[in-house]
């Protein structure tokens, strides 16, 4: 036994060794396959076993400030097919193609693509298409629910909301800016197939709904703002335009409109021009509205007061070899008058007094040359060159480009007492469950002192009351603002003849401004002054907005005007930019008296047609010339008279009178001293003496003395 058992054990060892080698080879191979090759092989496995269909998450809702839905997504069905389960592709392809409006051959090819487990037939079917497909009762088809974005108000706020592509990805506007936030999390359906390509199992990874956005925008205000803008642009046959309305105290955007516009529900036919959001993407040379920067700076730096007399050099000034002219020459004006008449020379002189460095500081503090960081993509920062490269025309708004939103923010500084507030569109972002995710407050910084802001406000009110922007007057409220008319640059070094940007920026009510609004119209045809083209749009839009916001009219009579359904009382105003000298109420009595002597009609403005009542466009066009040429009637001063007295006075001159309210006349339209045609109805507001609220000096329709001299212009 010992001899037998000893050697076999050695041979047994060899057998054992062979087994161990084999075992190790197996283990090594396992490690190789399951560790090293794992990514590769598991990918292969997935490829042959699974097909996954993405599940678009429900996109968050966009609400306006009152909780109205502006954009929401809803489920629609998309049609898919499993080619391996379709037996009679030849037969069904033409029928499906007909229902779904697809190419027959292309569809057939897809239905026969047996190497694919699942093919898309058509995405986002209409209910009608679904019904028709169902009626065919076919095998191998499958619906997958997808989301479709709906913009419930059609074109309203299209540029703010933006639009999405077929995969619900935001491509412009808020949809793009907040895409990550409101998109939600994509889910997917993974279908597992067996080797015979039969679906065996499916697994759904649910999508997560995106966050909701609550805007500061008011859909109703937006609607009327867009209407006003659209109508105004059509009146002027302009290329386009934009309107921005914001709350000066907070920077909340109430309306932001751009024209031409598009329907975000279907952008397939929209041009880039339609889709461009002019309020933030288009920078334009602001022209005279930019003068507020120089004026605020000079007031803040105590270089001028509203009554400082400025020598306007008879309408011409040469600076660095560049000759700058006023539309109408003046020898000398107070600062208030110069702003009201939009004197370029005066603004240049003020700019010189400030010096470029200081002016540049104010420009920056007013937010020009920087993005406002409004929650929209593709915002322009405008064009603001380094001080070293400045042209002397910067103080009058040439050589710098701004966006409408920048300008609105700058005017908000004046309206709210001197603080720059960041324009913003979003009030809060909430999750699906209603928790507040974020509540942006917006940046703010002081630009000018409250005193300066107040002074400038009253100067700007003068622009509306007595200056270039009478068309910006709003029934029942006091408004302030500034017109601007700039030639369009040709992209090289010159300006294009006959192409203008007409703007008006202002706010109302003057006492406690609720709304700042800028209107900018691109290439108006015919009348092109900001006061003619943009100011009426401002008046219309802001008037609606104030009513919608329930802002109390500044006196009871105005309120009754509105209540009586008389919404506009536009007067054939004298034209924007016209050197219509008016007076600062108290201090400049002397000048005013002197000017009173002559009361020549404002003939030189024939080329700048007035644009009054938007409802009577056709008449107005004719009236443009008739106005000065034929029998005008001098409107009497009816202020302080009783109704009978006023009636008698008007009747004697052949004017019709329309009165509202009770008591004595406290405000009339057209203002006294104006020449009007017979067709014009003279409207007056009557108040009981006790109800007079506003201090006389601040009342735009007062004092009578100022009105009496309103037309006493071109004496100088």
């Amino acid at each position: 036994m010992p001899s037998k058992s000893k050697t076999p054990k050695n041979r047994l060892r060899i057998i054992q060794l062979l087994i161990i080698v084999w075992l190790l080879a197996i283990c090594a191979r396992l490690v190789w396959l399951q560790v090293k090759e794992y990514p590769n092989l598991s990918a292969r496995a997935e490829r042959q076993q699974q097909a996954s269909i993405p599940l678009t998450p429900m996109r968050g809702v966009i609400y306006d400030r009152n909780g109205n839905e502006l954009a929401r997504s809803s489920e629609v069905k998309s049609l898919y097919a499993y080619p391996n389960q379709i037996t009679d592709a030849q037969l069904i392809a033409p029928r499906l193609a007909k229902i779904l409006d697809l190419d027959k051959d292309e569809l057939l090819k897809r239905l026969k693509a047996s190497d694919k487990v699942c093919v898309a037939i058509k995405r986002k079917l209409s209910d009608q298409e679904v019904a028709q497909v169902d009626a065919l009762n076919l095998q191998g088809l499958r619906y997958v629910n997808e989301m479709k974005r709906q913009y419930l108000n059609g074109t309203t706020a299209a540029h703010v909301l933006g639009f999405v592509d077929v995969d619900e990805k935001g491509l412009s506007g808020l949809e793009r800016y907040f895409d990550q936030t409101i998109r939600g999390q994509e889910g997917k359906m993974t279908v597992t197939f067996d080797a015979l390509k039969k679906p065996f199992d499916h697994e759904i990874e649910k999508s997560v709904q995106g966050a909701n956005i609550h805007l500061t925008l008011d859909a109703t205000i937006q609607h009327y703002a867009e209407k006003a803008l659209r109508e105004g642009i059509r009146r002027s046959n302009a290329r386009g335009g934009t309107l921005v309305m914001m709350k000066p105290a907070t920077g909340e955007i109430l309306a932001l409109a751009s024209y031409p516009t598009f329907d975000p529900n279907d952008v397939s036919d929209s041009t880039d021009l339609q889709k461009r959001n002019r309020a933030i993407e288009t920078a334009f040379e602001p022209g005279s509205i930019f003068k507020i920067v120089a004026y605020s700076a000079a007031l803040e730096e105590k270089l001028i007061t509203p009554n400082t007399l400025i020598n306007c050099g008879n309408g011409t000034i040469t600076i660095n070899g560049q000759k700058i002219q006023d539309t109408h020459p003046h020898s000398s004006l107070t600062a208030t008058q110069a702003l009201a008449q939009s004197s370029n020379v005066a603004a240049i002189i003020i700019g010189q007094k400030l010096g470029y460095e200081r002016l540049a500081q104010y420009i920056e503090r007013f937010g020009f040359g920087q993005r406002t960081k409004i929650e929209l993509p593709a915002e322009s920062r405008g064009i603001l060159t380094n001080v070293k490269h400045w042209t002397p025309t910067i103080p009058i708004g040439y050589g710098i480009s701004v966006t409408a939103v920048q300008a609105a923010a700058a005017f908000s500084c004046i309206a709210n007492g001197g603080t720059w507030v960041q324009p913003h569109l979003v009030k809060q972002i909430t999750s699906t469950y209603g928790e507040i995710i974020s509540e942006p407050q917006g940046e703010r910084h002081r630009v000018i002192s409250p005193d300066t802001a107040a002074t400038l406000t009253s100067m700007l009110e003068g622009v509306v009351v007595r200056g270039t922007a009478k068309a910006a007057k709003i029934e029942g409220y006091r408004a302030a603002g500034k017109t601007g008319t700039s030639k369009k640059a040709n992209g090289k070094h010159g300006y294009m003849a006959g192409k203008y940007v007409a703007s008006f920026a202002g706010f109302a009510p003057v006492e406690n401004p609720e709304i700042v609004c800028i209107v900018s119209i691109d290439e108006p045809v015919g009348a092109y002054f900001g006061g003619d083209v943009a100011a009426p749009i401002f008046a219309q839009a802001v008037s609606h907005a104030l009513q919608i916001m329930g802002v109390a009219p500044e006196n009871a009579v105005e309120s009754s005007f509105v209540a009586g359904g008389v919404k506009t009382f536009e007067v054939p105003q004298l034209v924007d930019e016209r050197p219509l000298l008016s007076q600062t109420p108290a201090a400049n009595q002397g000048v005013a008296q002197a000017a009173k002597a002559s009361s020549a009609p404002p003939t030189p403005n024939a080329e700048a047609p007035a644009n009054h009542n938007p409802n009577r466009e056709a008449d107005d066009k004719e009236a443009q010339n008739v106005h000065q040429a034929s029998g005008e009637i001098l409107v009497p001063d009816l202020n302080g008279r009783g109704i009978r007295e006023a009636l008698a006075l008007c009747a004697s001159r052949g004017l019709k009178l329309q009165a509202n309210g009770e008591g004595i006349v406290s405000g009339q339209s057209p203002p006294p001293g104006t020449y009007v045609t017979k067709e014009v109805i003279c409207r007056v507001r009557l108040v009981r003496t006790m109800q007079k609220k506003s201090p006389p000096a601040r009342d735009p329709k007062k004092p009578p003395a100022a009105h009496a001299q309103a037309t006493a212009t071109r004496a100088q």
Partner: protein
Amino acid sequence: MATYAGTKNNSQRDGWQPTLWQSGGASKSNGLPIDKIMLAVVLGLTLFGLVMVYSASAMLAERNFGTQFYFLLRQSGWAFVGLLAMTIAMRIDYRHYKRSTIILPVLYFTVVLLVVVLFLPKVNNTHRWIRFGALSLQPSEIAKLALVAFLALFLENRSHEVNVFKRVFLPTAIIAILVIGLIGAEPDFGTALILFIVFAGMLFHAQVPLRHLATIALPLVPALLGMLVFVPWRLQRLIDFVDPWKNQQTSSYQVVQSLIAIGSGGLNGVGFAEGKQKLFYLPSPHTDFIFAVIGEELGLIGAITLVILFGLLAWRGFKAARYAPDLFGQLVAIGLTVMIIAQAFFNISVALSLLPAKGIPLPFISAGGSSLALSLFASGVLLNISKHEGS
């Protein structure tokens, strides 16, 4: 320790008394406690097999037989029969079989069955099965046992003249080639190959001179080469083995699907019953390619565990062989261990594309009654040998 000494004495005697149905391992004169590790490994493998058969076959069973438990129930039945056989074999002293009056009739009977099966109608395109109603029997399974028993008996009887070519090598080789040839004719090259390995292993252990063993290789090499060259699909298999990805949709589809299954399991596997490759991607996921399902569902950890279980079985089997009191016991233990381990590793190597594709079931694991029952019976015999201490 008295029992230990007694065992030694007993084992050296010829007139020993086999103890049937003994309950406590060490209590009787001839027994050590049975090898608990081996028993645990065998039971573990069987249980593991049942579970994996269920996972791998549920879909197939559902589709073909209307119940997902079809193969599980069948396999459980066979496991019961096999465990019964194992329990009996465990308690029958292996030396009872050491008689020509038992072993030779079994061998003759096996040869007859192997001949008969060739004339029976084909099942799955081969003559491997003899059907009795719902049951089916593979004569090749019985042949494995018969050949091992015959070789052990013959080699022990002639151990003193092992160097004489005519006395030992030639007769064993003739019998072996007859049995292996009949199995190869079914055709079942896998089993034939395993039996050849068993034959070589046993003769090697029995001290048959290496030059004798080498003689068999002389006719074998040209025969194998001829088979490769003249039967095109075999050559194709070899090409596919070298580069399985080349013809992954056609000839090497099976191996590629197996590799995808195992590879996609990664470290931890896709989870029990979560495997996708058994959804008709893998051919015979519950039988020949069950290891691929294991690799996919249980990952590297599960696959290595299984391989290690077979390694443990080999260790315990060879240990039993080493300590067996007589050459017959040693040779039976080696024959059975090599048979089980070679089958297992061969099956696994095919699934891993380490060896060309051959249809060999994975012992204890693959669905298939006769294979499981035979493996369990063989384990019973091994366990019984382990109770004896020879040196």
